[in-house]
């Protein structure tokens, strides 16, 4: 029990992480670490072509290889009505190809064997007769008249166009543009990238044919949602499906969707009556699972001469790949991109978007991002910076002039979001002061005269996280609400069961601290359970920075519910009426007589041993949280770079990051999230891209072609904070996991463009490789 003097390590404490004890000893339990009795191994044969008809598949030689137990094809899956599955965007996706392959790396057949090496050997013995078809590699090609139709499986699909979607007020926006002195435009491609967590995706399906029980170990960020989807897809009774997400080696959105491998392994286990393990190789992960971004964007910003922003227009063309499988709320076709007005008081905005099928992998996921807010933030922050140059106004001043002011919150944006809170000027000024912005501008001039190219880039992002209120937010009809269950044991120790699932964010510590704050039980006395659908309340999982906004709120509220009951128990123990009891940091005392005191632990014991007549025994509860609004973290990132005009190489000299994510539960963990996010933001700006050749061959198919920054390339970061609590969240927290990946790419790119603007460079599409920067300089110089 806590002693009188011991401080409760609740909100605001840098509690060292509870989960680390197993990880630093090599005793984590990641998916590939599990070995079940009788377990078989699955390997997947993938298409070498981007687009080809399948004329026949001969699996006989593979099936004869000793050690091979089964070879599964689309035909076999079709017999069980499982050759196709629904996607998270109301489309269908092939589980194993039957008619044709639609992207390089698509799943064609699977081998189940006693040993993983044998399974791979057998893949080479499968003979597939392909007839190559013309590939469609870009969305522009896809929408050309006469382009080969990719989705011939869909009766009504006569071309490659998937959707057209508009939001905002077109007339008001047109009017704003008509009144503008200046219109600034930007055409850019936010390239296809891949979250590529260090651990790839995988599962072990263990179906017991005698009981019908299906236990599926899976690298899933959203185990409950997956359970429901499995029940719907496979027709299995939901009570017999148990999804266990063990320790996960990073997710970043990649582990949200249902992948064909999961479905095949489960079907195989059902048919064979033995557990089946499937673990992707890195190349499989990069070429077939949830990619991110891939937006071709055209933006226009209308301003008055004095810099006043009047309106914003954006047209998007999304490359969705062969199956429309974006993981996002169903009401919105391009996620939350329409938060693109960002941090600015922009009276009018209009967004239109089209999606196209291409012969590329499906699965648009939000790579460390809340549903396309990254693309939105990039667009507006690039436009604003360019507008400043066009108008001859300093980019910082143009932002300060147009920011939504503190007193305007809650603020309704032109596209209908209600921003809960913010103080953009303070965050920006802190960043400017810290980096010494005004002096840097002078130094920049001086160095330019010496032939040195220094660039300063700013980005003032507004994020939108914590989806979301049930009225607007669902995935496949499942409302995006989450639960927390708290049980306090007789000895005063507790177990908290949550619907979200950490992939490294530290939930086992952070959520224990929320309970500690509310009840005064130390975090080390609270076990946090997650990732097992049989043993946690329902919820939609961890992505889009939603755990703290949703599950964090549920946790605080369930703890308060138990505190109310403990208050009654305390009154009983203290022999006073409830109104005479007050609570502080784990102690219930009699008002005016602070030495008459019982602890939360005393109350917990009493709940099972000495409770008043008529009271329900026990001290446990469950709460589901339906957020009243989203939360809106924000901040300003200031980046300074030096560009070598002769090589195009650019080096980051300083990164100053001011983040406001509301109340920080564990500042140490928050800072870790920001450092990681700034690194992934840098990666996207500087090197990460999944590229394809003109035949649709995926070039970024391994870590030698898809570049990820090591410690050597990664910049150093200076972190600062402001705190503007969310007014509607029970503990004022907003979520932080993704802010830095959302906000920082624009800051890095703005810095490079800032250095090159006087040379005439107006845009370079990410990633800003040295080669591209060098070419841009050459082009600008007319070389």
């Amino acid at each position, binding site marked *: 029990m806590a002693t009188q003097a011991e401080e409760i390590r609740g909100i605001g404490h840098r509690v060292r992480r509870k989960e680390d004890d197993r990880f630093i000893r090599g005793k984590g339990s990641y998916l590939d670490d599990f070995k079940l009795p009788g377990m078989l191994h699955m390997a997947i044969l993938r298409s070498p072509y981007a687009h080809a008809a399948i004329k026949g598949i001969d699996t006989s030689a593979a099936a004869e290889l000793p050690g091979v137990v089964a070879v599964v094809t689309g035909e076999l899956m079709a017999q069980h009505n499982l050759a196709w599955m629904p996607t998270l965007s109301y489309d269908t996706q092939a589980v194993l190809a039957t008619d044709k392959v639609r992207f390089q790396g698509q799943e064609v057949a699977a081998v189940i064997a006693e040993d993983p090496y044998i399974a791979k050997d057998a893949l080479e013995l499968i003979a597939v007769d392909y007839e190559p078809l013309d590939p469609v590699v870009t969305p522009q090609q896809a929408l050309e008249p006469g382009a080969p139709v990719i989705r011939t499986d869909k009766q009504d699909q006569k071309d490659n166009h998937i959707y057209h979607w508009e939001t905002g007020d077109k007339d008001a926006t047109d009017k704003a543009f008509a009144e503008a002195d200046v219109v600034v435009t930007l055409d850019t491609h936010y390239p296809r990238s891949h979250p590529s967590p*260090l*651990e790839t995706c995988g599962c072990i399906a263990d179906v017991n044919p005698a009981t019908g029980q299906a236990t599926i170990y899976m690298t899933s960020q959203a185990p409950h949602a997956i359970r429901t989807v499995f029940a719907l897809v496979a027709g299995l009774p939901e009570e017999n499906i148990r999804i266990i997400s063990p320790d996960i*080696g990073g997710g970043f959105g990649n582990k949200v969707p249902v992948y064909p491998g999961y479905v095949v392994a489960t079907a195989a286990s059902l048919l064979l009556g033995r557990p089946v393990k499937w673990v992707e190789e890195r190349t499989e992960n990069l070429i077939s699972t949830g990619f991110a971004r891939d937006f071709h964007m055209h933006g226009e910003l209308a301003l008055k001469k004095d810099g006043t922003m009047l309106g914003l227009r954006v047209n998007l063309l999304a490359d969705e790949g062969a199956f429309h499988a974006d993981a996002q709320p169903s009401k919105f076709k391009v996620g939350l991109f329409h938060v693109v007005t960002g941090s600015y008081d922009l009276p009018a905005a209009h967004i239109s978007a089209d999606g196209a099928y291409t012969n590329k992998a499906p699965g648009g996921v939000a790579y460390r991002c809340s549903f396309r807010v990254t693309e939105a933030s990039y667009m507006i922050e690039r436009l604003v910076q360019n507008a400043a140059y066009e108008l001859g106004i300093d980019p910082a001043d143009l932002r300060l002039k147009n920011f939504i002011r503190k007193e305007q919150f809650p603020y309704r944006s032109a596209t209908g979001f209600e921003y809960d809170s913010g103080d953009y000027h303070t965050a920006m000024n802190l960043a400017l002061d810290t980096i010494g912005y005004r002096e840097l501008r002078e130094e920049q001039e001086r160095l330019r005269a010496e032939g040195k190219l220094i660039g300063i880039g700013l980005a003032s992002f507004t994020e939108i996280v914590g989806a979301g209120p049930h009225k607007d937010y669902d995935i496949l009809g499942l409302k995006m609400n989450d639960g927390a269950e708290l049980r306090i044991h007789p000895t005063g120790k507790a177990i908290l069961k949550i619907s979200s699932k950490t992939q490294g964010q530290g939930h086992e510590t952070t959520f224990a601290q929320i309970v500690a704050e509310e009840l005064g039980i130390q975090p080390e006395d609270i076990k946090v359970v997650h990732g097992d659908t049989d043993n946690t309340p329902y919820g939609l999982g961890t992505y889009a920075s939603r755990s703290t906004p949703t599950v964090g709120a549920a946790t605080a509220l369930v703890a308060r519910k138990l505190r109310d009951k403990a208050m009654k128990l305390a009154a009983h123990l203290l022999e006073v009426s409830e109104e005479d009891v007050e609570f502080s940091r784990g102690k219930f005392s009699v008002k005016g007589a602070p030495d008459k005191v019982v602890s939360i632990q005393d109350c917990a014991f009493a709940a099972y041993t000495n409770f008043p007549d008529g009271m329900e025994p026990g001290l446990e509860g469950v709460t589901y949280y339906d957020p009243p609004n989203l939360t809106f973290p924000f901040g300003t990132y200031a980046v300074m770079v030096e560009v070598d005009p002769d090589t195009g190489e650019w080096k980051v000299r300083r990164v100053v990051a001011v983040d406001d994510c509301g109340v920080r539960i564990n500042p140490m963990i928050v800072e*870790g999230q920001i450092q990681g996010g700034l690194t992934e933001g840098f990666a996207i700006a500087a090197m990460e891209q999944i590229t394809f050749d003109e035949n649709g061959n995926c070039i970024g198919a391994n*870590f030698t072609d898809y570049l990820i920054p090591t410690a050597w390339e990664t910049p150093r970061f200076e972190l600062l904070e402001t705190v503007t609590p969310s007014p509607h969240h029970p503990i004022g927290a907003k979520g932080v996991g993704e802010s830095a990946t959302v906000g920082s790419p624009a800051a890095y790119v703005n810095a490079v463009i800032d250095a090159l603007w006087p040379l005439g460079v107006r845009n370079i599409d990410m990633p800003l490789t040295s080669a591209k920067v060098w070419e841009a300089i050459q082009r600008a110089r007319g070389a």
Partner: protein
Amino acid sequence: MRVTVTINGVERTADVEPRLLLVHLIREVFELTGTHIGCDTTSCGACTVLLDGMPVKSCTLFGVQADGHEITTVEGLVQGGQLHPIQAAFKEEHGLQCGYCTPGMMLVAKALLERNPTPSDEEVRWAISGNICRCTGYVNIVKAIQAAGNAMAAPTASAAASA
């Protein structure tokens, strides 16, 4: 083929296919699953172990190539029930998030600190540049390694450090 290795101080023998990768020998045959796999191209370092004290990527050696050699994996860092100073520092400095890269990072750190107990920021970054971390941005990994070096250099920690 028979292969005999001393792994974390214990001699182990197995009869394996010549093509079995060292990482699979460690994980599947010896059932030490703290060593991870993150790529197919020797790029990520999640599989790093020490072979006679030198960091190697165990996905890029065959098990039989380790015959007669000494291997240290993350499971061998704890000595006499005590955390190695590197392990303690990784926790203390928040040098890990998902934990997947951590075993490899710690083993590279061990080899580094035994050569150079007080490495600079640059020296640490260079030493771990064969290991990818997707979560932390490396800042706290560097801090942890430097803190561990200091702890190991301090006289009280020398017993744990000499493992």
